[in-house]
């Protein structure tokens, strides 16, 4: 602590500076309490890491009257169960980057998480927050669509499982009900013969990507590409499934130049096409 003499007179909160509008605060103790609170107060909003919500509140683009903090719900477990990976919605991007289970069972999520914002953002920001916020430039929603993930939401009527591809409906808009809390993400664990890559382009490290794409390839036991799943971010109003652009890759073994050119040419967005070819090349190498 500094000596008392160094403590300055407190500036008035509303004079100068950038400050959120007043709100009340509740530390929820259970998902049920979150759901009840959201149902009782339409000005209530859930806060996890707050790395998207806090800036919106500072700029007063969002003005919730009650923040429901879900940190004490400890929704941050990562576990492999019955061949599938289950990730608590409160798991931070930093944990996705560092967790050995994620590195093994979903290396694409590790790569996508490492591209989000800056280290100081990734320490606080969460996977559930990214999905619920539904920024079209966000990496994790695209990665989860490409991986065929689903999300679990808890609401007044109980639990509901939503495919990640059906979650976002538009810019910052999802199919989550105002009374629902996203609690878990479920996805198949990476299989032998699968490979994935996330490629994006941003003007500076940590900026929102102008375009990005997640590509997952699966080789059969003979080494032939049997399936490709892909989803793009930054170029539409939601993370979009773009698997159809990779149909010509099925049955191929190698990322030949002509194959990469063909894939790139299937995208109207020139930069996205280039990134798609790059991600496909990396994914095929990683699946070797």
């Amino acid at each position, binding site marked *: 602590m500094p000596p008392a003499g160094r403590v300055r007179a407190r500036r008035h909160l509303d004079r100068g500076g950038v400050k959120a509008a*007043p709100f009340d605060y509740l530390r929820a103790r259970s998902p049920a309490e979150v759901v009840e609170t959201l149902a009782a107060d339409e000005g209530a909003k859930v806060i996890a890491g707050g790395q998207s919500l806090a800036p919106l509140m500072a700029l007063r683009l969002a003005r919730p009257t009650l923040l429901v*903090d879900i940190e004490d719900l400890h929704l941050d477990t990562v576990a492999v169960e019955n061949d599938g990976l289950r990730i608590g919605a409160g798991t931070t991007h930093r944990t996705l980057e560092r967790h050995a289970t994620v590195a093994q069972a979903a290396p694409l999520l590790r790569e996508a998480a490492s591209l989000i914002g800056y*280290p100081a953002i990734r320490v606080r920001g969460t996977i559930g927050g990214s999905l619920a916020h539904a920024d079209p430039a966000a990496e994790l929603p695209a990665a989860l669509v490409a991986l065929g993930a689903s999300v679990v939401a808890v609401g007044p009527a109980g639990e509901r499982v939503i495919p990640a591809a059906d979650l976002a409906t538009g810019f910052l808009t999802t199919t989550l009900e105002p009374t629902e809390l996203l609690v878990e993400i479920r996805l198949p664990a990476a299989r032998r013969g699968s490979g994935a890559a996330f490629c994006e382009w941003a003007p500076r490290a940590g900026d929102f990507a102008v375009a990005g794409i997640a590509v997952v390839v699966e080789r059969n036991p003979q080494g032939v590409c049997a399936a490709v799943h892909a989803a793009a971010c930054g170029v539409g109003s939601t993370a979009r499934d773009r698997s159809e652009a990779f149909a010509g890759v099925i049955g191929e073994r190698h990322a030949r130049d002509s194959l990469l050119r063909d894939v790139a040419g299937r995208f109207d967005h020139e930069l996205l096409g280039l990134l798609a070819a790059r991600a496909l090349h990396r994914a095929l190498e990683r699946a070797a």
Partner: protein
Amino acid sequence: MKVNVKLEVNADPAEVQVEPRETLLDVVREHLGLTGAHAGCEQGSCGACTVLLDGEPVRSCLVFAVQCENKPVTTIEAFGRPDALHPVMDAFRRHHGLQCGFCTPAMVLTAIALLAENPNPAEDDVRQALAGNLCRCTGYAGIVAAVLDPTARP
């Protein structure tokens, strides 16, 4: 609505009465007088308000103080003294890693956290780690050189 929040700041217990909308930055600067964390953009763009929360760098303008109940907070004031600089600070001084100094406390804290996790970072690791901290004076070359200097290791 005022809320009582207990924190541990630079290894000392602290207790403050805050409005929920007051950020961790407001608490360290205005309640505790620790003015090394700087209020730049106050919307998460510049990184000048970086402090360590649970030992990890965070933007203190993007964390409400009420979210920090019982968490350890470390500010730049925990490191070095004017007559005994922390090794990272001294490397910044020798490599001309600062001019006006506004971004410096946050740069130093971010560098300290990076070196704690990765004692031998490559230049790209340093640039990635510092990417969220804006400096409008130096052009970053001196800052990167300071963090790469082996004598910056604590």
